[in-house]
């Protein structure tokens, strides 16, 4: 009897060790799978950046949009995948004391209008109709490729809008408005045609949160610079140029983005904290209930940059380099 007890103990210890090893292997396998599940499944990135205000005193909206354009290009999205809509020309405006520049920081520290800015819709082409045409894809066949949003079901799209807005609408060019219901319907049509995988909508206007209230399509995350009833304020005037250069929310978002590089692992929760009330005076809001993944697992570069999935090519086609083709010549 005494001999069997240690045998049993030995067997039990071995079984426990074996189970432990299996458990560890299983756990790492499950963890790999879990990691895979939380990654975004996109293969390309697009950005639609819209500035909707005209006139010289709305310099800051153009500077906002161009700063976001610059960050997005720096993080890797090429011009062919960016649709930039600027409602007025500030760099060559007759009232600009420093022509061919658009500054985003006072004391003229940062010129965001370089020589590789590619504006796709300019001046009077920025209308509600053209904006909705870009989003839904109902574009006349004569439109060139650079003016189209050729996204597919594996595209992550960043949409940034800035200008003057109110409760439920955004003003375009001082003559028309887009309502939050129209925007929500446009996104729904994009979803129906699978024109996006995930969408990040950022809006920097007064009462910006009202614009994302009506969204109902899946996989949309929205950020706004102010809640309903609040105004978004501008950041700093520059006495040399004579206008306000940037809006507060975009200014702090840009400071945040300057620290992001293409390999960074910063996630969306940090972007939500970007402009607290002490700095921004308005309360930024965000909406993530339509989004399937947890914001903590969403990388900033999923939307602002273009980090592609790659696979090593391990196969090779065997070609015969004999001259079968020569006879056809």
């Amino acid at each position, binding site marked *: 009897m005494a001999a069997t007890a240690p045998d049993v103990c030995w067997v039990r210890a071995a079984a426990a060790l074996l189970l432990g090893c299996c458990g560890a292997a299983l756990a790492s396998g499950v963890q790999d799978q879990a990691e895979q599940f939380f990654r975004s499944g996109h293969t390309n990135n697009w950005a639609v950046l819209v500035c909707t205000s005209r006139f010289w005193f709305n310099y800051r909206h153009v500077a906002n949009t161009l700063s976001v354009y610059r960050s997005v290009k720096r993080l890797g999205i090429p011009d062919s995948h960016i649709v930039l809509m600027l409602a007025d020309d500030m760099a060559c405006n007759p009232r600009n004391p420093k022509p061919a520049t658009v500054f985003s920081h006072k004391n003229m520290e940062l010129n965001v209008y370089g020589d590789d800015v590619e504006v796709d819709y300019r001046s009077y082409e920025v209308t509600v*109709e053209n904006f*909705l045409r870009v989003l839904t894809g109902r574009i006349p066949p004569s439109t060139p490729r650079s003016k189209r949003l050729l996204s597919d079901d594996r595209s992550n799209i960043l949409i940034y809008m800035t200008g003057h807005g109110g409760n439920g609408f955004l003003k375009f060019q001082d003559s028309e408005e887009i309502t939050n219901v129209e925007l929500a319907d446009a996104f729904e*049509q994009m979803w129906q045609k699978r024109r996006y995988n995930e969408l990040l909508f950022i809006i920097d206007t007064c009462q910006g949160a009202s614009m994302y209230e009506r969204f109902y399509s899946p996989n949309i995350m929205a950020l706004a610079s102010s809640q309903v009833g609040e105004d978004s304020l501008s950041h700093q005037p520059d006495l040399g140029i004579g206008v306000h250069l940037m809006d507060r929310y975009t200014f702090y978002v840009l400071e945040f983005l300057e620290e992001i590089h*293409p390999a960074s692992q910063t996630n969306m929760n940090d972007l939500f904290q970007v402009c607290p009330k002490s700095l921004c005076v308005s309360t930024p809001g965000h909406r993530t209930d339509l989004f399937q993944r947890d914001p903590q697992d969403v990388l900033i570069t999923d939307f602002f940059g273009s980090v592609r999935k790659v696979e090593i*090519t391990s196969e090779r086609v065997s070609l015969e380099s004999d001259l079968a083709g020569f006879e056809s010549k």
Partner: protein
Amino acid sequence: QFQLTVPVAVVFAPGSVPGDLPRPLPFRDVQEMEIPVNLRTSVTSRYETVYRSTTAQENIALHAATAQEADAALHPLQDALLGSLTVYVVSETSSLLPQGINVYVGKHRSALVRAGSGLATLHSRLQQLTQVMSFTSSSIAAALSDGVPDGQLGPDARRHLKSSLGYEITFSLLNPDPKSHTVDWDIEDAVNRYVQPVLDKLSLVANFSVDSQILYYAVLGVTPRFDKESSSFLLSTHSLPHVINPVEARLGSSATSLYPVLNFLLYVPERSHSPLYIQDKDGAPVSTNAFHSPRWGGIMVYNVETPTSPQALFPLHVEVDMVRVMEVFLAQLRLLFGLSREELPTEFLMESPGNEGLADWELDRLLWAHTIENIATVSTTLTSLAQLLDKIGNIVIKDDVASEVYRAVSSAQSAMAKLAAGHLHSAFQASKEAVTSSERAFFDPSLLHLLYFPDDQKFAIYIPLFLPVAVPILLSLAKIVRETKQRKKEPTKMD
């Protein structure tokens, strides 16, 4: 509610007929299998099998020395319809198939199977074979996936190229160091000789257009590490995703075409970074020295040997070995389309398709997946179009939009009917027409609705316009009514 019919012919060579056949040869059999995809859609696969014995000519062909010759000899004897399969069963002791190999998959639409001990083994081998050569339940599910992660398919499920009417292929040569290397590549000849046959075979699937360019001073986005042991530079796997971005901005694309672009880049490293190898996850250098990105294209690094004599003249003249390059690029093209040769059971042997790039049955696989995807796209497009029109009452449908919709519906129905009948080629053509019509109808520029009027805005706009004008009108109407009433009363008084 798809039904996919595959016509299969199983031909028994003498000496290979299993003893426990249910009926004497020749006979027909139909096997149906249900593939559950999701709640709304179900796919039934139907294998219509004809069992017969060999004809005299087939017998002669089967006595060839190797399986490859047998396959080549058997090819003219089949009526190779697109989507059909022919399986020749040889006896267990036949020397046609090498040792340990039980199934040989040819490069046309036929295969050679070794007869097993009984009908059951034959059936299981046949089932495995048909799954490889036509479609599997996962490929069907991937083709039908709507983009909503149902939980069954991971986020990587749809990374093959979407079915499209055309693709643009661009070959680019990147030379970041023209002072050290003058690189010549005879791309036109290589495209005509190696790429064009593959594209001709794929022309059934889509239209392809090819162009090429050379970019100078285009650097990769990542600085490679120097490895002392091998005295070479290495790019690790996790730095590869960042390589593409700075180059992509300079790649450019055709301004007129709207087709998806596939970029194949050949990078000749600078002299200061030569030789450059790509490391895989385990740290070993990749044999092809290339990597690809789903739905985008591929990059290959071409190392130039450093000259041994110190008096070499710079810039060095480099003549690119296009065969080596095209082998990798064509493999990447196949992988981008989803044709991989890696997941095969061990007892299978596949014939290499040679210069054609892909076997006939691989083309069939693509066609099955694309046809189903096209039909699914048509149905979702038309459903969402109908929903849109229901919701917004004041969109005007032009006549040509309506006719496109009718055409799309009829083409889709005919495609499904042809799929059920087993005619893959005409089913694919019908599905292509259906997709073209439905896209044209959905994306017609006239369907943009900008007429959202909330009720309070209607009041706010129309009341200030009409109320002031309405006041004098209503007052004068009231006055007229009062006067007529008074005049009616007056005559009675005057009496």
